[in-house]
């Protein structure tokens, strides 16, 4: 009775549920539910039902009847429950005794526990509150960061002072993941950066017939600046992110709590090996990157600018001295420490759910890159002042 076929294809059935009023003796009124009361069906709304009942004198008892109900699911339970509540606020009772047994049982199950004490929290605060909360959160984050750096240093000292054991295997494993495994990507990026530097220089230097100085440009550019910088950005995306994701999931799985319950300090157990491994790996990767960048420069100079390889080599060797490499390596080490700290900080302070782990990872990479660029500026000014 509730089914009707419509639609051009003729195969879609719109199922309909209906309400109807019929009086029952003595002096009561029945609200009859008809048709298919399911998710897919067009169902009368609560307001329609209340409208129908508004015409009925308040004193008259209302009973729900389901004799012509063909099918039902949870949507009927929601409807009856809401109707019951709304009528109750009007001081009327709804007799549900004639509904199918399943509906009645679900209704009583749903109404069994009210959890009155549970407040529904308002998740949207005013804009001023939110600005204030953001400011406080920012301040706390800065304090957390300093705390974390301090704790990491203490953890490393405690290992050096032999109060906590050094996990050599873990150190080796983290070094392997951070260093040698990054060689292919560092090679590719460094060669390309060397190529680009050489090209940019060549365009200018060719005007003066000074192509030979491409070698100086690339050697100095790579060793003092670009080697450390590009390696740091690769490592931030690779290793920094993986530290944050790994520690974040450990946090979410309560693995870090488990470490604490054994009286083990997670800072010296997890963070210290990672920071040490990365500060060892970064200068080595930087040196490797310097070399590959110069090879990239040589490809352009010898392949396209007509320089011979010995010329390029001699010019490179003459243009840089040990200080230039030392300057780059020091930068690389600093960047390594910053990346490791950012990754571990975000991971250790990650929230306990899957989205928080994602946020921690993003935040680790962003923090690393900001820290790298800021540190690079400071170091460059410092080197200038020192005359290096």
């Amino acid at each position: 009775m509730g089914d009707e076929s419509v639609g051009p294809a003729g195969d879609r059935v719109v199922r309909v549920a209906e309400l109807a009023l019929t009086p029952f003796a003595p002096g009561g009124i029945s609200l009859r539910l008809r048709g298919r009361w399911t998710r897919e069906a067009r169902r009368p709304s609560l307001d329609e039902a209340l409208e129908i009942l508004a015409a009925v004198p308040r004193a008259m008892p209302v009973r729900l009847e389901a004799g012509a109900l063909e099918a039902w699911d949870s949507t009927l339970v929601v409807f009856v429950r809401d109707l019951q509540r709304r009528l109750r606020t009007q001081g009327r009772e709804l007799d549900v005794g004639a509904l199918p047994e399943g509906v009645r049982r679900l209704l009583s199950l749903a109404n069994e526990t009210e959890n009155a004490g549970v407040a529904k929290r308002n998740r949207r605060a005013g804009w001023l509150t939110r600005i204030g909360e953001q400011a406080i959160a920012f301040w706390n984050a800065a304090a957390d960061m300093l705390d974390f750096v301090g704790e990491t240093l203490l953890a490393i000292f405690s290992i050096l002072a032999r109060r906590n054991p050094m996990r050599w295997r873990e150190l080796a494993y983290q070094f392997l993941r951070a260093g040698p495994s990054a060689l292919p990507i560092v090679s590719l990026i460094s060669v390309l950066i060397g190529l680009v530097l050489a090209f940019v220089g060549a365009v200018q230097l060719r005007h003066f017939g000074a192509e030979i100085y491409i070698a100086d440009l690339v050697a100095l550019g790579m060793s003092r600046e670009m080697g450390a910088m590009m390696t740091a950005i690769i490592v931030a995306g690779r290793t920094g992110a993986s530290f944050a994701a790994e520690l974040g999931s450990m946090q979410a799985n309560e693995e870090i709590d488990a470490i604490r319950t054994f009286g083990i300090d997670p800072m010296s157990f997890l963070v210290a090996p990672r920071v040490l491994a990365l500060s060892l790996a970064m200068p080595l990767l930087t040196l490797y990157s310097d070399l590959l960048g110069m090879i990239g420069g040589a490809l352009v100079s010898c392949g396209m600018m007509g320089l011979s390889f010995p010329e390029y080599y001699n010019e490179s060797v003459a243009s840089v001295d040990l200080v230039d490499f030392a300057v780059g390596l020091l930068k690389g080490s600093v960047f390594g420490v910053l990346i490791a700290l950012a990754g571990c900080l975000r991971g250790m302070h990650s929230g306990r759910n899957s989205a928080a782990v994602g946020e921690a990872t993003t935040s680790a990479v962003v923090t690393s890159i900001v820290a790298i660029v800021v540190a690079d500026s400071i170091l460059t000014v410092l080197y200038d002042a020192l005359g290096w």
Partner: protein
Amino acid sequence: MTEAHIQVRDLTMAYGDFVIQHDLSFDVRRRDIFIIMGGSGCGKSTLLRHLVGLKSPARGCVAIDGVDLWHVSQAERDAVLRRTGMLFQSGALWSAMTLAENIALPLERYTSLSAAEIRDLASLKLALVGLAGFEDYYPSEISGGMKKRAGLARAIALDPEILFFDEPSAGLDPISAKLLDDLILELRDSLGATIVVVTHELASIFAIGNNSVFLDAESRTMIAGGDPNELLAHCDDERVQRFLRRGELPA
């Protein structure tokens, strides 16, 4: 009433070459509370993963309502599985969503209900498991037992015809475990659902089960089946008796 809802025929489950269980054949009838039991590591949870379509059989077939899950297209399989709900051992709630959002997700995906209707349905489901008012809580903000009940609310979001439970009472105190058993019975009776439970809680097995299969870890196959109370009274297999009597054989 006694028609088979889930049919398992000659099922062999394996991870690679490692056979977990072989030659399982049994029927789960409509409105059964079907217990999958056996010692730890015998493959109970693996069997459940086969029944809910998370893992394909090495051999044999699993059919729900006569549809062999692995001889139909992905779309048909999904359509069948949409009529089932599963409660995972620790709830497996999506931690980045509130409880209401957890329940709303399948409703949003598979129904054309309005946002308000979905919200109402989610509230109803939470109320059914005794969590009325916890709509806006995140899974990390509630206790383990509550997570389990919230997981159950999500499992019944689409009014499933079959409900699967993986160790529902594991990690719950005896009173909560009993309440959950009552809830399972109540949902079976009110929703008219078929229920499959993996458990080794003897109290639950005898209280709610009316059909079962017993998996043996050593011979890697099923060695008994049927009403657990009948098994206790009449099964003469020593391994089954030992299991059902907590290791003590009848005198």
